[in-house]
């Protein structure tokens, strides 16, 4: 279903030293650095799979998601999702995907959530009966009854995130990309979101790619984990593989911690990707 092949993407970043003198100097002469956000990454994901995509901040996770959702055009490499190249015919392609960016909002700030949903219905041209059904299902699973009439600006983060996820699924996408969907949520909301994602996968065979820093998300949701760091793929396997890898790296270190966050942290440190 997803073939991600040898993709590279770099950004150009203007940088300068601090201070007024340097600010003036940079008016005339800019120094640019090229940052390879992702560097020859390849993987393939089959239908109905749930994959955790992890790595430290700045590893290239979001860039990958943005390439997969057709927003960014990579510098080189090929990517085919369901027979389509994401960035080639963006308009057609995006009909089949749903995306949640945990740090951004797709809901209109000033108006009730319901109005935003109806706009999405119009944008995706969802027939009314299908929209009704889906909305009922999502309302029930994500407990939205109470909050659909509230303007977005007055929702708590947890409530908003539940609405964001619902908004991404109204058009019944086959693929769901979640970029840090549990960021900043409390325990109850996190569990609600995780259970919901699992249920979507079981019932609708939705393929899910999830990036997160919360290892419990990974433990709860995904079987397969792809670890990247500094733009390169470092591992692709189960969570158990990750654990073993960390232990082998850590063999010389006695009294290692068994908690998953520590395992990941030590793995990052050992692989020198922080």
């Amino acid at each position, binding site marked *: 279903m997803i073939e991600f092949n040898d993709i590279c993407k770099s950004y150009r970043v203007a940088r300068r030293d601090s201070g007024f003198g340097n600010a003036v100097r940079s008016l005339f002469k800019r120094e640019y650095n090229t940052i390879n956000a992702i560097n020859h990454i390849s993987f393939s994901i089959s239908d109905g799979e749930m994959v955790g995509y992890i790595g430290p901040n700045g590893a290239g996770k979001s860039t990958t998601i943005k390439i997969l959702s057709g*927003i*960014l*055009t990579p510098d080189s490499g090929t990517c085919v999702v369901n027979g389509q190249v994401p960035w080639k015919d*963006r308009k057609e392609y995006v009909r089949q995907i749903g995306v949640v960016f945990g740090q951004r909002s797709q809901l209109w700030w000033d108006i009730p959530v319901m109005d*935003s949903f109806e*706009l999405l219905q*119009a*944008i995706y041209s969802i027939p009314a009966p299908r929209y009704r059904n889906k909305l009922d299902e999502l309302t029930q699973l994500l407990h939205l009854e109470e909050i659909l009439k509230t303007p977005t600006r007055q929702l708590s983060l947890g409530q908003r995130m539940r609405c964001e996820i619902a908004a991404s699924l109204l058009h019944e996408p086959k693929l769901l990309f979640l970029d840090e969907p549990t960021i900043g949520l409390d325990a109850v909301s996190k569990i609600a979101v995780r259970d919901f994602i699992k249920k979507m996968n079981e019932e609708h065979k939705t393929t899910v790619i999830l990036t997160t820093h919360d290892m419990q998300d990974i433990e709860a949701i995904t079987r397969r984990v792809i670890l990247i760091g500094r733009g390169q793929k470092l591992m692709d396997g189960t969570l158990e593989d990750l654990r073993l890898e960390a232990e082998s790296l850590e063999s010389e270190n006695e009294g290692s911690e068994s908690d998953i966050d520590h395992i990941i942290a030590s793995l990052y440190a050992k692989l020198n990707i922080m």
Partner: protein
Amino acid sequence: MRKYYGFFKLRFATGLQYRMASVTALTTQLIWGLMECLAYKAIAEASGGNLPMNYSSIVTYIWLKEAFLVLFNTWAADNDLFAMIANGNIAYELCRPVSIYSMWFSRTTGARIAEVIMRCIPVLLCAFLMPKAYRMTLPVNSSSFLLFLLTLFLALGITVTFCMIVYMLCFFTISPQGWRMVLTGAVEFLSGNIIPLPFFPKKYLFLVELSPFAYMQNVPFRIYSGDLAGREIYQCILKQIFWLVTLMLLGIAVWKRAEKRIIIQGG
């Protein structure tokens, strides 16, 4: 089509959410309009009526300008769109199965029409009830009123396609401020929003009329007040259509270039 109507409806709802803003805006506009009338009255009296537009046309022009302000002002272009480009929320817009150009075009047009419906009625009502010297007049005849409506829509189209170019150019600079300041400042002056175009010196007027700016609010307002009449009207309509198409094609071309080099700011 339905999706574009959706944007329109949504903006309308957003506009209705803030009632107080509409009330205060009305007050400002009335006072501003009255002040302008006073200024032109003083000029008219000092020059002994020897003005490039007659005084009652000017008064009507001023009130139309106030009533339809939100259709044509470019400085109040959709801030959400600029913010979206600057902070990276455009990411969501790009995962929708619609073209960004048509989505933003209908969104901007929708917002303007929705807002003007709420704003123009009270302003016009007050303008017709002003003391005689500052009162707005009815259109010269019914056909000029129809032509006024037609050119009003064309002028709105030109204004929005112009704003679209400004949005699209912001993809090439990190901050939208620069483009906005320069371009919207220029439009403000050149479209006759500060002083009506007939007051421009002939030499400069000729240059302005070569630009799209002369075909924004200038045309409908002057048709309404009878300052523009006869064959000149039809020439203006043709030029309006020309600019509408040209600016739209230009905007789409800029967008096509921007689309391939988009970066999403803010991680």
